């Protein structure tokens, strides 16, 4: 595991209007299967991907939003959401899905995956990564 690289997936597009959000999710799940150290960032319109209560039955597209809640099972436990992006869109954490992961080192205690960070804090997180993927 010491060879694991730190992979960061940066999500900046709204879901459904383009295919980026869904494609990102597919790539994240593939990357996680290779046991890399995976983090996700949601900023700009990417924060819209995580809103709860998505119902696509009226637009004839697949609702892929339930898949975000499976990320914890793939040991993807670091999901950074940028505070400034949420605020300028009239959103709060309460508008987003509650994403969790189970910490096997602490008797599978359920912990929050989403970390609300400022742009400055996100800059530090990005600086600490080995590879950056943009969607």
């Amino acid at each position, binding site marked *: 595991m010491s060879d694991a690289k730190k992979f960061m997936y940066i999500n900046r*597009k*709204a*879901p459904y*209007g383009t295919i980026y959000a869904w494609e990102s999710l597919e790539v994240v799940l593939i990357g996680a299967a290779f046991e890399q150290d995976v983090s996700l960032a949601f900023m700009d319109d990417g924060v*819209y991907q995580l809103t709860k209560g*998505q*119902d*696509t039955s*009226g637009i004839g597209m697949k609702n892929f939003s339930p898949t975000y809640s499976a990320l914890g099972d793939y040991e993807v436990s670091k999901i950074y959401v940028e505070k400034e992006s949420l605020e300028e*869109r009239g959103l709060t954490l309460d508008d987003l899905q509650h994403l969790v992961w189970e910490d096997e080192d602490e008797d599978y205690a359920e912990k929050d995956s989403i970390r609300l960070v400022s742009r400055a804090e996100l800059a530090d997180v990005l600086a600490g990564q080995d590879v950056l993927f943009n969607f």
Partner: protein
Amino acid sequence: MAMLHVVNKSPYDACNLNTASSIMKEGDQLLLIEDGVYGAMKNAKAESLLNGLKVSVLGPDLAARGISQDKLVDGIDVVDYAGFVDLVEANDKVQSWL
């Protein structure tokens, strides 16, 4: 000669809503669809672009994105696909800002 202006891009990703809202004339109507529906949300930075405009938003696109009606700017009309057709019919021209 009323015109229906259709916007399908997020106001934070493209300047379409900015252009459409500032070019609209008295009697024109704005319809937000697809990612354009994000422009209808209140307490948001783009909210003021809608000031003084007659605005409709497509309900199925709101639902897909998890936006409930209490999140919308006051006075916005939520329409279904039949309502979309009614708007097209009620206006002399349609301008789709792509």
